[in-house]
């Protein structure tokens, strides 16, 4: 098993204690949703898995995130190498202002797989992202000419192209229309088969639809972490109940 084990994780932004003593285990090959009110630390938590907090000068991370016997938060872990194993998709679709093809090829060549049959990799990745049929004849067009939903799927294709083990998604559908959202959700459903997915979402129904496990964070603390069915049907914690029934506040 290569679950990801989070132990006593604490994050500070300057004096702000953003995450407090988080302990949980992200199961391999499943979709884990992180829910919670704005500012509860979900995104911060997500960014711990690929060390994106390193880019924020004032952020300080303590505790450990163990994966395959390595502490991802350890001094000896190279964040750049880590990010090649742990892909990330952001809230706002952010394809590079390059062609569709180059968007995917970029990450692949960064990872030193430039010698492989790039055309094949691009095709496979786009197919995995359910985008191939739509962009097959537009590979040399600027990615920014795609629709928002297509851009986001391109970002997912870009992430899977480098064959990561884990894919982090930070509110991947929150900027999209319902149809695009549906496509993204379907896609996550399919990704589950090959990847460990951790997804932050504001949309409870979405979390309920797509995830196997759900963690509820509140003010930097892990309130409840359980099977998604359990969380949305009958949460243990009143705080979670209040949050998911919309009676938070």
């Amino acid at each position, binding site marked *: 098993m290569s679950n990801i084990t989070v132990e006593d994780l604490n994050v500070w932004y300057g004096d702000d204690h953003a995450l407090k003593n988080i302990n949980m285990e992200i199961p391999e090959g499943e979709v884990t949703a992180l829910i919670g009110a704005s500012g509860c630390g979900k995104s911060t938590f997500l960014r711990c898995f690929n060390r994106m907090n390193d880019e924020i000068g004032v952020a300080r991370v303590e505790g450990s995130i163990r994966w395959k016997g390595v502490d991802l938060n350890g001094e000896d872990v190279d964040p750049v190498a880590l990010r090649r194993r742990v892909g990330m998709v952001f809230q706002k679709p952010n394809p590079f202002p390059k062609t569709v093809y180059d968007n995917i090829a970029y990450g692949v060549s960064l990872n030193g797989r430039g010698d492989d049959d790039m055309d094949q990799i691009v095709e496979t990745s786009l197919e995995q992202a359910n985008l191939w049929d739509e962009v097959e004849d537009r590979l040399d067009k600027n990615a920014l000419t795609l629709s928002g939903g297509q851009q986001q799927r391109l970002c997912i294709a870009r992430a899977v192209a480098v064959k990561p083990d884990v894919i982090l998604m930070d509110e991947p559908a929150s900027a999209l229309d319902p149809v695009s959202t549906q496509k993204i959700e379907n896609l996550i459903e399919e990704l589950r088969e090959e990847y460990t997915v951790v997804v932050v979402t504001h949309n409870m129904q979405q979390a309920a639809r797509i995830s196997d496990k759900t963690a509820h964070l509140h003010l930097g603390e892990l309130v409840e972490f359980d099977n998604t069915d359990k969380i949305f*049907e*009958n*949460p243990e914690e009143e705080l*979670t*109940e209040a949050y998911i*029934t919309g*009676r938070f506040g």
Partner: protein
Amino acid sequence: MARDTFDKQLGDLKAQVMEMADLAKWMFETGVQSLIDLSDDTADEVLEKRHRLAELDEQIEEDALKLVARQQPMAKDMRAIGAALKLITYINRIGRYGKDIAQITTQWDSETHYSDLVNLPRMVELVHNGLNHVLRCYHEEEDIDLEQLVEWEDEIDALRWSVFRECLTYMAQDPEHIEEYAYYMMIARYLERCGDNVCKMAEKIHYMVEGEHLAIDT
């Protein structure tokens, strides 16, 4: 509380369920009463109410589905609406058994009852108590007294078989009134079904309140 409108709508839904339950309870009790009194007028009153019962059933189902669509309920809210949808089915049945009993009243040819209605009054009392308990729990969102309920249910079941055997005996002794004894057996069967529906309601209310599924095995 951040969802005032939703909370009010949930309250309204529950009130409707309670209204329907009260109606069904009245139909059941009044149906039985009409039989006891052999009063066709009372029976007609009950028969008349079945339209209202069906109306409420439809109304509540529609409102509950609207709430699901518009509010995407989660957790307790979701369970409450799910429970309401199931409860109305059981309530409907109970009401309709009341109606069925009233119908028997209208078809009763003799002027009198036989054998003091065997054990039927005792069964009515048990169903009545169970139903009241379950409805109070629903209203108060409290958990059911399961032990008590199972006791009732067991007794109802036992009584039903006792009515069955008794009536068989009477039928042999008094073949002239075989039809009336058959009616008694049917009514006993109805009452037993009512008790069973009360148990089903109890299961749903327990799920609504506690969030866990439960099967009352009898």
